[in-house]
């Protein structure tokens, strides 16, 4: 069974051997279940069911909150889980944004900007992993908040709520955050293996 080591071990406990956490744990199962909402979201958008589409993106967002909670309850936090959560955020919300733009429910230009910046950020995370030399999730308080906003963006499109206002407000904020995090990932020193702040934190605690 594949496994990974637990993250964020305090420096004082560095002498202890790292606890092994299976990748097949309840928190990762909840994260994976988010993909199940995507076909239903597509179905609702395709049929013009705005309320159902909103419901499915809300369920996807709530599952994102639940996986962090499950990780705490079952004590199964891991670097892999955090990375899996971040990748799932990108895929689910990227899919949702492209979907609503493709069906004309959201303006295409800001969606292209947002998806492009999301991909750039993902690429930077892999560069950061290479710099760190191990599987590690780059922790960013600002990015956690913008990810929450991204989920909302899809909901604004499906609900028809001030779509242009929210989408165009999002672009400059995301640009500032991506540039700030790019500097941290590419230029700033990578924190040590002992779990120094900035390497990892609780999974799924975005707004």
């Amino acid at each position: 069974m594949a496994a990974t080591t637990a993250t964020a071990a305090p420096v004082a406990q560095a002498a202890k051997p790292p606890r092994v956490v299976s990748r097949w744990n309840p928190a990762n199962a909840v994260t994976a279940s988010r993909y199940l909402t995507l076909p239903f979201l597509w179905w609702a958008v395709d049929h013009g069911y705005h309320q159902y589409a909103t419901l499915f993106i809300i369920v996807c967002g709530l599952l994102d909150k639940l996986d962090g909670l499950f990780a705490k309850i079952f004590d199964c936090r891991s670097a892999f889980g955090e990375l899996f959560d971040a990748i799932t955020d990108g895929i689910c919300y990227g899919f949702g944004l492209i979907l609503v733009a493709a069906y004309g429910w959201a303006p295409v230009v800001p969606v292209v900007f947002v998806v492009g910046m999301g991909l750039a950020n993902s690429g930077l995370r892999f560069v950061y992993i290479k710099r760190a030399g191990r599987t590690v999730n780059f922790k960013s308080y600002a990015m956690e908040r913008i990810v929450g906003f991204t989920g909302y963006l899809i909901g604004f499109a499906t609900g028809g709520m001030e779509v242009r206002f929210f989408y165009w407000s999002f672009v400059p904020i995301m640009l500032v955050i991506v540039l700030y995090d790019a500097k941290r990932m590419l230029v700033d020193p990578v924190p040590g293996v002992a779990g120094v702040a900035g390497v990892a934190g609780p999974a799924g605690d975005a707004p």
Partner: protein
Amino acid sequence: MTLVSDSTFRILLSVITGGVGGAWAIHDILFIARLRGADRRDPLVSDQRFGYVMGIVIGLIGVVGTLRFNGVL
């Protein structure tokens, strides 16, 4: 095919957006206030400070958007 009436849906959207946005802005204002006096050169502190500022901005955008949605602004 709908789940609730249009007016109920509108209220739900307003609560989910404006309510959460306002609460989140207050949450991050309180958290950033806690950081007063913390070492600004600490990378974790500067990341937290930046994140909370962005959280406040995002929360306020949620509130403004909700007010626009309801014709207040």
